[in-house]
């Protein structure tokens, strides 16, 4: 498949390619503590961290594959498989709970037929919880493909859901 896919932050991603991965790794090798910058670069390129990247990174940094795998799986941000074409993050932390976030999260799950943390089978959308976007005085908050949305209510949420399903 040669078509670039739309994904998180509305960015385009390329399919897994070892050469491209190697150049992402090389780009950050000279930095102190290069592992997180490398993983971010890979995810920005491919939309997820392919398992095949782990031995390449381990080799380049002279650490074990287990260490790389441990880091990839420790952080919530790093995906093991591509996200949906649209990613809707709903803040589920206290300030948004206080401002009516719970019924909105229930509504989004019902409308999309997806539990929080899941991607639709057809790869169209991912619905994810996020714990604070720092928009707590204009709560409840959401982020659609990297775009922040505050003062979320049923109407604004429905508009976002419609936008995702177009």
């Amino acid at each position, binding site marked *: 498949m040669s078509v670039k896919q739309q994904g998180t932050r509305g960015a385009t991603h390329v399919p897994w390619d070892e050469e491209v991965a190697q150049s992402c790794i090389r780009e950050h090798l000279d930095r102190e503590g290069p592992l997180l910058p490398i*993983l971010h670069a890979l995810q920005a390129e491919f939309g997820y961290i392919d398992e095949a990247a782990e031995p390449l990174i381990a080799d380049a*940094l002279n650490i074990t594959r287990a260490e790389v795998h441990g880091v990839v799986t420790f952080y919530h941000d790093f995906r093991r498989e591509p996200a949906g074409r649209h990613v809707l993050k709903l803040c589920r932390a206290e*300030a948004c709970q206080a401002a009516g976030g719970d019924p909105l999260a229930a509504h989004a799950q019902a409308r999309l037929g997806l539990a929080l943390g899941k991607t639709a089978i057809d790869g169209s959308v991912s619905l994810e919880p996020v714990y604070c976007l*720092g928009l707590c005085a204009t709560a409840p908050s959401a982020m659609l493909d990297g775009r922040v949305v505050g003062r979320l209510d049923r109407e604004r949420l429905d508009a976002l859901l419609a936008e995702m399903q177009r």
Partner: protein
Amino acid sequence: MTTLRLYIPIDAAALAVGAEEVAGAIRNAAARQKVAVDIVRNGSRGLYWLEPMVEVDTPTGRVAYGPVAPGDADGLLAALLGDGDHSLRLGPTEEIPWLKRQTRLTFARCGIVDPRSLDDYRSHGGYKGLERAISVGAAAIVEDVVQSGLRGRGGAGFPTGIKWRTVAETAAPQKYVVCNADEGDSGTFADRMIMEGDPFVLIEGMTIAAIAVGATKGYVYIRSEYPHAIAAMEAAIIAARRGGFLGERIANSLFAFDMEVRSGAGAYVCGEETSLLDSLEGKRGLVRAKPPLPAHKGLFGQPTVINNVLSFASVPIIMEKGGAFYRDFGMGKSRGTMPIQLAGNIKHGGLFETAFGITLGELVDDIGGGTRSGRPVRAVQVGGPLGAYFPRALFDTPFDYEAFTAREGLIGHGGIVVFDDTVDMAKQARFAMEFCAIESCGKCTPCRVGSTRGVEVIDRIIRNENRAANTALLEDLCNTLKFGSLCALGGFTPFPVMSALTHFPEDFGAPPRLQAAE
């Protein structure tokens, strides 16, 4: 033709409520009406219920309008060209009572300057602190910061000057300055605001720290949930480097210091300083046992100053005006000002910087205006997900590190989340345990396992299964978490849980607690 100079925030929360659309609508309206406009994208003034707030330069100072919707653009522009009268007119910005009541030291420039302009920063007093720091030298900087009484604004409240002195006294070939910008606490956004609205103040603060301790390299570790702050800091670092304020021979002195931004990856626990250091090193964000202190063995095992954004951002004014100036604000051992963040179900939410000592009740009822829903305030959580829930009966508590500790709570990073009377406190206690389970780094058993057991025990209490015995078990479990965890995640999760249980027992099926009349 005169040019109208307008200010429309580029702050993420302002963008979240339509600031970009408003800026676009005003540009289009200006083109239609053939008016020349110069739009500055400033930070937010922090009066979030009025965002998007548009300000206009007038001969007598800036005048504010808000909250502005894109549909208001034509009418607003017409008003600005006329006598300025409009239904959204808030008056001269500095005279808005909510802003006028504040003491803005750390946030002095936020919302005023163009965050992308080094020149604007300098023309508003920026880099005066560094200038004095360079002239007085390392030892005097540390003394001034000690004298100021500044304590870690991330939540731990450790005296910043003492930390710097320890690093300064530790000999090493390489030292680091690390800024903790992993502001993960719900209800807090002050770090984000300053990075988006006045990023140079953070760079200046870190540079002064580097000179004080002899460090040459700095990192700002920003959570990935803050893409706007990351972009603003990266742009400011490039501008500072270009202006001779980072790199070799800073501001034509003999000091060298450079810094870069590192992005987190969605782990709340990395807000804990030792986890953050492990994360910067490219490891899982596991908490380290102390000692050794980061001041002795920090990043890559080297002596490291690690402070919160607000701590560093408070340093330039301390250096400019002297430690005594800053120390004269505040109460008890809490000196200076605290940027307090009012959030959640609140009518007037935003950033309120004031001297320590103001009471919780004043903040919530008077300044915050109560709930946005219009229902009575029932509980407030102070200090993030690890902070206690306070009932109205404790609203006389002054905002002060020690006063909150004495009441089994904490001020943390200064966030206050307001809940109305529809809140179910058993559910909030359960969430605290659940959040701990999701975010635990896994190093300490009480936190890793106890949090999940805590969710189960609270579920049993809610279902009225053996309620008395399970309540006793929950208290015991909280005690184990408190004393058996290395960091605040496991150690402080008992605060929200136990405060909910103590102050709101009726939500757990027990008789209500008798409270003194207010």
